Structures are given as C-alpha cells and as structure tokens.
C-alpha cells in the first residue's frame, strides 16, 4: 500500500489485490454495522461506539441519555453515504489499483477505519498486550484475522494522516 496526496488535495491510495479485497471487506462490514441499532450490537462493540460511561455521573439520564446515544448512531448512519461512494470507487474485488479519496472524505474515512479497529478489538475483548505484533503472530483463527485487520488499518490510518 502506498498513499500520496492527489492532485486535487485528496488522497491517492495504491492497493495490491489482497489489500483492496481487505479494504472492501472492511467497508462492507462497517456498512452493515453502522445500520445496526446500538442495542442490537455486540455489547462490547456497543460499549466502544455507544458507551454510556460517565453519562449518569454527568446528569445525563433517561431521555437525555437516549438522545445522546441516538446522536452518536446518527453520525455513524451519516457515514454510510461515504461508504457507498468508496465501495464504488475502490478497485474491483481482489484487484490491484488506485483508489482516490476526495479531500472532504479523508476525515470521515479515517474515523470509519478507526471505528472498525475499535469494533474488532471489542469483539475479541482485546487489551494492550493483545495488540502487540508478537501477540498477533501467536494468535490463531478469527482472533488472528481481527488482529491482522487492526494492524493493517493502523498502517493505513498512519499513512492517511501523514499526507
């Protein structure tokens, strides 16, 4: 993967075949997860995306707390239009190619990729030690897949922010 600044100020993302397949899979699963109501998500994921920690202590209770969580869900629902655009502009499944991200989409893309990292970490209740590269090498099965995605997206976010 190589990311550079596009002529129009956006980002030009050069992806190898397996990388574009992985990004597509991430975007598709995010699309579905964003549509899911907070109460229907995996509780660990819901806690990371729609956590209620500190609301009660700040006096945000009842209807106000519901409104707070709904607001967070609306923001994520609002990212779906961008996800649709990116899925259309991404190289075809498994094919290498160049993916152009318009400047106005960069912030949303970074936030969405970060959401996927949080989600995968939540699904496996990953802690600091689990996120070390050595731990990824030792992990197996679905947990290993989740860790590969988390590390790949970390690299992608770093490159997007550097440019």
């Amino acid at each position, binding site marked *: 993967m190589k990311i550079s600044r596009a002529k129009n100020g956006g980002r030009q993302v050069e992806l190898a075949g397996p990388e574009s397949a992985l990004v597509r899979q991430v975007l598709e699963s995010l699309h579905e997860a964003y549509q899911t109501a907070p109460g229907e998500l995996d509780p660990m994921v819901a806690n*990371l*995306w729609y*956590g209620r*920690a*500190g609301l009660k*202590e*700040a006096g*945000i209770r009842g209807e106000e707390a519901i409104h*707070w969580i709904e*607001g*967070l869900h609306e*923001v994520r629902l609002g990212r779906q239009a961008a996800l649709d655009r990116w899925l259309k502009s991404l190289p075809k499944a498994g094919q290498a190619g160049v993916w152009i991200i318009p400047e106005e989409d960069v*912030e949303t893309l*970074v*936030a969405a990729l*970060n*959401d996927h*990292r*949080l989600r995968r*970490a939540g699904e496996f209740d*990953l*802690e*600091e030690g689990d*996120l070390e590269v050595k731990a990824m090498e030792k992990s197996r099965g679905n947990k290993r897949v989740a860790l590969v995605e*988390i590390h790949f997206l*970390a690299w992608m*976010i*770093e490159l997007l*922010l550097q440019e």
Partner: protein
Amino acid sequence: MQGGTTTTPEAVPGQETDLSEAFAKGWRVIVWNDPVNLMSYVVFVFMRVLGFNETKAQRHMLEVHEQGKSVVAIETREKAEFYCHRLQEFGLKSTLEAAAG
C-alpha cells in the same frame, strides 16, 4: 403590544444556581486512555474537534497515554457536552465532570 395580565416568574429555589452552573465554565471534558486508538489518531481528533495546534494536541495525547486521562477543555455545560459528544463520534472515550469549586 397585546394587552393582558403579565406574570412575573417567581423565583424557584435552586433555579438560579442551575442557570449559573450552566453558563459558568464549570464543566471538564476528560479523555481517557484506551488501548486501541492510535496516538496519531488522537492528536488528529484533538486538532479537528478542539481546535488545538499540533503541540497542544501532542501534549494532551501524551497526558492521556501516560497518566490515563487528560482534561482537554473546561467549558460551559453546553459547550462541554458538544465537545464530549464530538470526541465520542470519533471513538474517543470521553466524559463530562463538574469542576470542583
């Protein structure tokens, strides 16, 4: 102007305190450490949401990383809620707390 009876609102005990609390910069926005968010991402979010320059954003990010939390804003209730919500929209663990005194 329409005629009619005007009613002067009666003072409600506690209301004055509530209003002054709401408008005073008496609410802290706290960001808590978590193992997943990247340091560079946290800096980026602080710059975007709170308008910090890079140096200030880095300082607060390191405070979160090393001390477990950082007070990133002390604001009126409304503004503190806005910042706290925005930080959560970006996946950061943030809470509100009344500033003591």
